[in-house]
């Protein structure tokens, strides 16, 4: 092979190189060397790629895929959590509203009951006082009416004494008065 090479090199002159140059791809004596080095190179290349380069490269790509997937999962989880929080907020808002309404109603009812009670108490008090006053009035009236007889007797006695100049007997005045009353 080396021999052929030197021959070729020496005859390589402008325009005249064709004569003793074989067709290199068909020079069978070079095949063994090419096959040997191709085998060595390819085995080393295959080993390095399959053991070192491709696991690293595939790992990077797989890692990214996993990362994106987990990020998307996280985002979905967060979104659902946010939605949950939203519904929880709305729920508590509605609850608070209804509770406020209930409270307002309760307060209103309580207040009106209280004022009712107060009014009733006042009314009862007033009624009682009215009744008391009426009782006092009627007592006073009966008392006054009971005095009327005495007044009438005294007056009658006084009038008779003036007219006659002499006090009548109380029994007679009494009897006369009773006669008039009857």
């Amino acid at each position, binding site marked *: 092979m080396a021999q052929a090479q030197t021959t070729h090199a020496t005859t390589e002159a402008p325009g005249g190189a064709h004569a003793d140059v074989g067709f290199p*791809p068909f020079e069978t004596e*070079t095949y063994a*060397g090419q096959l040997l080095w191709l*085998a060595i190179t*390819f085995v080393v*290349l295959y080993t390095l790629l399959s053991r070192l*380069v491709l696991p690293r490269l595939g790992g990077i790509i797989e890692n990214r895929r996993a990362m994106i997937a987990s990020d998307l999962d996280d985002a979905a989880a967060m979104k659902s959590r946010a939605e949950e929080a939203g519904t929880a907020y709305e729920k508590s808002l509605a609850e608070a509203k209804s509770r406020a309404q209930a409270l307002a109603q309760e307060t209103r009812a309580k207040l009106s009951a209280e004022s009712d009670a107060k009014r009733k108490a006042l009314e009862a008090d007033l009624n009682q006082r009215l009744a008391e006053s009426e009782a006092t009035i009627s007592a006073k009236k009966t008392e006054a009416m009971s005095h009327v007889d005495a007044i009438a007797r005294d007056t009658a006695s006084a009038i008779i004494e003036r007219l006659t100049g002499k006090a009548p007997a109380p029994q007679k005045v009494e009897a006369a008065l009773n006669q008039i009353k009857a």
Partner: protein
Amino acid sequence: MASPIEQFQIKPIIPVINFTNSSAFMIGAAAVIVGGLLYATRKRAVVPGRAQSVAEVLHDFVANTLVDATGKEGMKFFPLVFSLFMFVLTANLLGMIPGFFTVTSHIIVTFALAMLVIGTVVVYGFMKHGTHFLGLFVPSGVPGWLLPFIVVIELISFLSRPISLSLRLFANMLAGHIALKVFAGFVVSLLAAGGALTILAPLPLLMAVALMALEFLVAALQAYVFTVLTCIYLNDALHPGH
């Protein structure tokens, strides 16, 4: 003027161990692949930089090609397919640098790679499916009298796979580099001719530039074609029977 095929010459570097320029470029391609990918992934960044993006695109591209052709269970061949794709692509592209040797422009290299693929298919097919793997050559639903012919045709088509796989890559790389060299040679010849011919020299130069672009496309495309066919053949090993 060097001959257009001079660039394919195998030149010994260390003759004792058969180490040649071809060996050097094979090792160079492997070093570029491993070094480049390790460099690109050194940060293991979640948000990739430029280099890491390229590495990830290559990874996903090969993985998708493989899964499309063979399904999820084909991923056990991923290191092999990725190694093949990266080796062929890098060897092709390294060959595009002027003065660099193109490893894949030698039929023995492409044939060895093709045999690696077919060998994997045959060995894995028999290991996984035993004699069922032979069902690959016996399509179902064929009339009995036609079957012998079909089996022969299937057999020939299967056996021609490594040949077509290796020849396609080899021929593309060889022809492209020869065409480039021929047109580049025209530029020099026309310049040397003098007179009116010298004025014509830019024309083949333009052609060489256009071919260069085409060859970059071919370099990437042939690596892809090799990979796709590898995936399709591996699918036969995983799911024999039509």
